[in-house]
């Protein structure tokens, strides 16, 4: 990882840092509000090392950060708690990295901690880079555009009607049942008019090639209750006489009260 330097190297560089760093730290402090937290400060400090982030010296960085915090304190600048927490942790990390590992001590080694910090910095930098790439993309409303006159979609309510077979049969039976119990109702419903009968017979005589009982021409629904039967029989009979007169049918009755039969008159 190259996250820290050998001890002797460090001793040497620490001297260098303290000189160059003071200036940098002061520059940082001027706009400490402009930083997005301690990691941001660390990233900025890391840049002064002028190396690839993967090769950054975490020990050096810790030194730089601590110098930055010291400087801020001396300038009586109040740093947010996050910055101080990071300073304390980096001081701890520094001691871990510098002192030979204590076998008694629990927890991750200084190298592990340094490696993770390096990873965090690298990751944050990567996120910043891709954020910049993202923002530099062609963007809707800036580089490419949507339809300027969108048409709204009109909502239309459509009603479909439905019925079941049961509905159908119940409706029909309701109607037919009502007819069955119509006999007592003295209304025009019980009168089958001559016109109706004529209309009906005219429609049917075409099929009457053989002698047929005229009572079979009584329409359905008129063959149940007596009043209706009477009316329908009378009008059908009258209508058949009318058709005989027109020369379109023949009528016969074998004996009194025998069925009256009707037949289409053959064309001459």
């Amino acid at each position, binding site marked *: 990882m190259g996250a820290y330097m050998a001890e002797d190297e460090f001793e040497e560089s620490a001297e260098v840092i303290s000189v160059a760093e003071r200036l940098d730290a002061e520059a940082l402090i001027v706009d400490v509000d402009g930083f997005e937290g301690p990691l941001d400060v660390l990233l900025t400090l890391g840049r002064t090392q002028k190396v690839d982030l993967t090769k950054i010296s975490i020990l050096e960085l810790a030194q730089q950060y601590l110098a930055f915090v010291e400087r801020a304190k001396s300038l009586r600048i109040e740093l947010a708690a996050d910055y101080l927490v990071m300073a304390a942790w980096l001081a701890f990390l520094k001691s871990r990295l510098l002192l030979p590992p204590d076998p008694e001590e629990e927890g991750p080694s200084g190298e592990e901690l340094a490696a993770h910090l390096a990873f965090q910095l690298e990751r944050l930098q990567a996120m910043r880079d891709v954020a910049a790439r993202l923002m530099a993309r062609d963007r809707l409303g800036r580089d490419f555009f949507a339809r*300027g006159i969108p048409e709204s*979609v009109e909502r239309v*309510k459509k009603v479909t009607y439905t*019925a*079941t077979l049961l509905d159908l*049969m119940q409706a029909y039976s309701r109607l037919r049942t009502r007819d069955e119990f119509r006999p007592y109702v003295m209304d025009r419903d019980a009168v089958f008019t001559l016109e109706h009968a004529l*209309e009906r017979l005219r429609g049917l005589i075409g099929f009457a090639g053989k002698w047929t009982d005229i009572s079979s021409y009584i329409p359905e629904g008129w063959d149940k209750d007596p009043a209706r039967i009477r009316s329908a029989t009378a009008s059908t009979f009258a209508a058949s006489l009318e058709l005989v007169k027109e020369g379109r049918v023949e009528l016969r009755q074998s004996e009194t009260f025998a069925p009256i039969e009707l037949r289409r008159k053959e064309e001459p």
Partner: protein
Amino acid sequence: MSEDSQQTGEETGEGTGQEESLFEAPPIGEQERMVEAILFASAEPVSVKELNSRMPHGSDAAEALVHLKKRYEGRGVNLVKVGDAWAMRTAPDLSFLMQKETVETRKLSRAAIETLAIIAYHQPITRAEIEEIRGVSVSRGTVDQLLEMEWIRFGRRKMTPGRPVTFVVTQDFLDHFGLESARDLPGLKELRSAGLLDNRPPPSAMPALGEGDEDAEEESAEGQSELFED
């Protein structure tokens, strides 16, 4: 193509142009793309003058428009002239797509189901015959509704005075009710044995005051409202 635009370039460019010589007008194909993009994105129709002012120097929007109009002929979107400006619009025959249908299913009205039942059992049947069976007049609305649903259609005319039209049920009707043919409808006897006919009034009740009469009243009220619906 670029020769054309060179020619026409003079007239359009004259008003604006000091940089004329510096930039060559883009090929007409490019100009067409530009007009397309501008018209697409603009919130309002755009005039030729404005197109020219937004396009690179020496462009001829009018010519590009001719090409673009041709390109969109017969497409789902057309280039149309609005006053002296141009815009893209959905093809008129596709306006139905700009509607979102929500379908609501309702039960058929009693008048409609009764009329339908009568037609199914008695087809072919005239309106007069339906009325005869229902005992009330059948409103146009009811028949129209059934016709529109394509559950009934016109059958042959009756050979009776006036040659009245008849109604029959359709294949859609049979499909909907799961019937092979209308003859498969159960007869009265079967209906009765299935218990569907036992809504008869008790024998002792006065029929005139019984439910049959109520029915008739209710129906005629229904019939009326149907008439006023359409």
